[in-house]
């Protein structure tokens, strides 16, 4: 079929092209990426499904407004490198977003094809072109403008900080990124597992930034090692961007939660991803022995899916997801839920834990749960789960992982009191500029929104970059060019 001659009817007749993936039985024994990526043939076939709407509503569905229709047309024409360039006008991390965006709630949700058929696989195509560009060695290091003499501190090296750094360094500013951990990348490195987002991709993005001149200082906890005021007053930074992400994990507040064997998803994933505990004892950090044991993860988001699939890969006999509501209410990406099921994860839905049970050594042995049924809709419009009387039962467990969300990092509030925060301790900003209440200090990502998404964090980083540039240079030109 040919892009020029194909009719809309023919386009609609093409089924959505499946993403090739590692076999489920095979992949639960390794940490390699599950999805293998489109071939050029699959990509072109999928791209032909896009009817090139006059009013491409998909663009508004993307938080950073990627010119979706245009890049997909280029894919259909076989101009993969052109497509990659087109995406990068709006999204600096397409290989990452193509993999982790909740597309079904964003661009693909509104794609008109989706009304009667399956929507165009925008995310898969985005991933394909970004991978193609990288794998064929065509990633170009963008041009950097002459030095402006302005110095900007970026706090945190997650997607918010990295995208802010990317935009500002290109404009000729001197950029220093401060990261609390020993490794860069934020959740992309320590949260999202290798089998969903290969770390090599994140490292390449970081290398690109280094080549453009961004300097990185790891092991600096801003607020403790140095304060924001000191960065401005003593180290001569003209502006600061705060992208410190979400804070401490929440716990459920039920009895037995401090038993040995109960841990947060952040702890479990940090041990495995950041500290490479899957490689113990080659790596010094241990992780709970999952082999042939019963593991439950409490929650229904992406973090919960990542934790339960990690437990499965570490050899768990039973790996359960325990969730209070039904599958329809689960916030995780559909693909993760689907992949988890294929891998043998057992979903215990409409189930409410009421107490963890332990032995004399305060070692977890099980969880007491109540079965729930869906009642009337609550404030969020989701049907509220209500307990079924007399339905209590005990599920034997060796490890429980709590994955019900995170609070906000209080360090900035404690050490820079003139930055206004909300009741939930998130940093308050002007959403048009991401400016905080403190002069020349901006913020974006999870520290502003609470736990959200990679693409929203990136978008916030870029909005802040634009505002910082305009404020420092007193001009807006030079930003919209790319």
């Amino acid at each position, binding site marked *: 079929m040919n892009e020029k001659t194909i009719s809309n009817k023919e386009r609609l007749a093409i089924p959505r092209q499946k993403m090739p993936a590692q076999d489920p039985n095979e992949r639960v024994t390794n940490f390699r990426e599950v999805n293998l990526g489109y071939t050029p043939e699959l990509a072109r076939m999928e791209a032909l499904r896009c009817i090139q709407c006059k009013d491409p509503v998909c663009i508004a569905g993307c938080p950073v407004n990627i010119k979706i229709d245009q890049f997909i047309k280029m894919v259909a024409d076989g101009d993969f490198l052109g497509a990659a360039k087109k995406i990068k006008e709006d999204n600096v991390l397409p290989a990452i977003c193509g993999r982790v965006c909740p597309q079904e709630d964003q661009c693909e949700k509104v794609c008109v094809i989706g009304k009667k058929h399956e929507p165009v696989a925008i995310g898969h195509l985005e991933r394909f072109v970004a991978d193609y560009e990288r794998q064929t060695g065509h990633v170009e290091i963008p041009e950097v403008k002459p030095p402006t003499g302005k110095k900007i501190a970026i706090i945190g090296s997650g997607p918010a900080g990295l995208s802010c750094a990317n935009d500002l360094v290109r404009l000729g500013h001197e950029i220093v990124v401060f990261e*609390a*951990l*020993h490794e860069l990348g934020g959740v992309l490195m320590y949260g999202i597992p290798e089998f969903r987002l290969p770390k090599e991709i994140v490292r390449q993005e970081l290398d690109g930034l280094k080549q453009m001149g961004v300097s990185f200082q*790891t*092991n*600096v*906890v801003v607020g*403790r*090692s*140095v304060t924001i005021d000191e960065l401005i007053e003593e180290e001569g930074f003209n502006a600061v961007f705060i992208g410190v992400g979400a*804070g*401490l*994990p929440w*716990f459920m507040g039920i009895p037995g*939660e*401090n*038993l*040995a*064997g109960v*841990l*947060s998803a*952040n*702890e479990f994933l*940090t*041990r495995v991803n*950041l*500290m*490479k505990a899957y*490689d*113990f*004892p*080659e*790596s*010094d*950090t*241990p992780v*709970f*022995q999952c082999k042939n044991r019963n593991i439950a993860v409490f929650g229904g988001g992406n973090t919960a899916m990542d934790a339960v699939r990690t437990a499965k890969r570490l050899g768990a006999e039973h790996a359960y997801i325990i969730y209070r509501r039904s599958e329809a209410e689960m916030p995780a990406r559909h693909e993760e839920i689907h992949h988890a099921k294929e891998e043998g994860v057992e979903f215990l839905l409409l189930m409410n834990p009421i107490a963890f049970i332990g032995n004399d*050594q*305060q*070692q977890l042995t099980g969880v007491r749960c109540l079965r729930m049924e869906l009642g009337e809709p609550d404030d969020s419009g989701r049907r509220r789960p209500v307990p079924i009387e007399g339905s209590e039962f005990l599920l034997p467990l060796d490890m429980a992982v709590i994955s019900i969300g995170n609070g906000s*990092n*209080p*360090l900035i509030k404690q050490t820079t009191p003139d930055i206004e925060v909300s009741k939930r301790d998130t940093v308050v900003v002007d959403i048009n500029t991401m400016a905080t209440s403190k002069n020349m200090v901006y913020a974006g990502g999870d520290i502003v929104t609470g736990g959200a998404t990679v693409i929203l964090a990136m978008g916030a980083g870029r909005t802040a970059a634009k505002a910082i540039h305009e404020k420092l240079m007193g001009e807006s030109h030079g930003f919209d060019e790319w």
Partner: protein
Amino acid sequence: MYTIVSAIFLAENIKKIEIEAPRIAKKRKAGQFVMIRVSETGERVPLTIADADPEKGTITLIVQGMGKSTRELNQKKAGDSISDIVGPLGTPSHIENFGTAISIGGGVGTAIAYPTAVALKEAGNYVITINGARSKELVVLEHEMQAVSDEAYITTDDGSYGFHGFVTQKLQELIDSGRRIDYVLAIGPIPMMKAVAEVTRPYNIKTVVSLNPIMIDGTGMCGGCRVTVDNQIKFACVDGPEFDAHLVDFKNLSDRNRVYLPEEKKSEEAFTHKCRIEKQG
């Protein structure tokens, strides 16, 4: 990489290590700690900042070889380096002029208590120190402690030096003597801290302990360091490490600290084996 400026053994298995870390040296306050990673495959290990020299840009750690990570660190010599060091972390000790303050250190806990004892002295307290060790050879920082104390006591379990007995016996003696005691800081093994808490509880003496749960990031991200204080969850790396001794659930802490014992043993055995082979080769 962070360069080690000097490294000397204070006692068998306890080493004093001075490391270049200018930002930390400038900012640290008594009661704060760092997380270190010895090598690229190393775990993140919390260690108290025993001392610092802001001009030189160095901090001092006093490390007891317990398992793989601390023993690997204690093999380092001046001129060697370690992969990572981050800090200062944790909430600084709450320091004020309480009146009479007793600082109790058990084993390497003496080193952890030292900077706070210094700060208590500087704040105008009458400082009494009680430092316990199993035997004479394991007593550390004797002279440093003496220098910041109005009264300094050493206790040994075997009676080979100083008072024969436990730190709690000495503490009870001081209380029984009828003198006014306003504040007690106790740092050491969990059973020791728990015992001190029980000694002071009936007298309502404000007592603070520094807790040592297993930490991973140490920056308030993972929730691994949670401890039960006053029946509530607290995170030692940000809310602590110092807490009111009378409210701490010590049993919960010691049970949680044992979760990885089999792995820690395995890791140490592999390390010892590797060291032996290297020595032979």
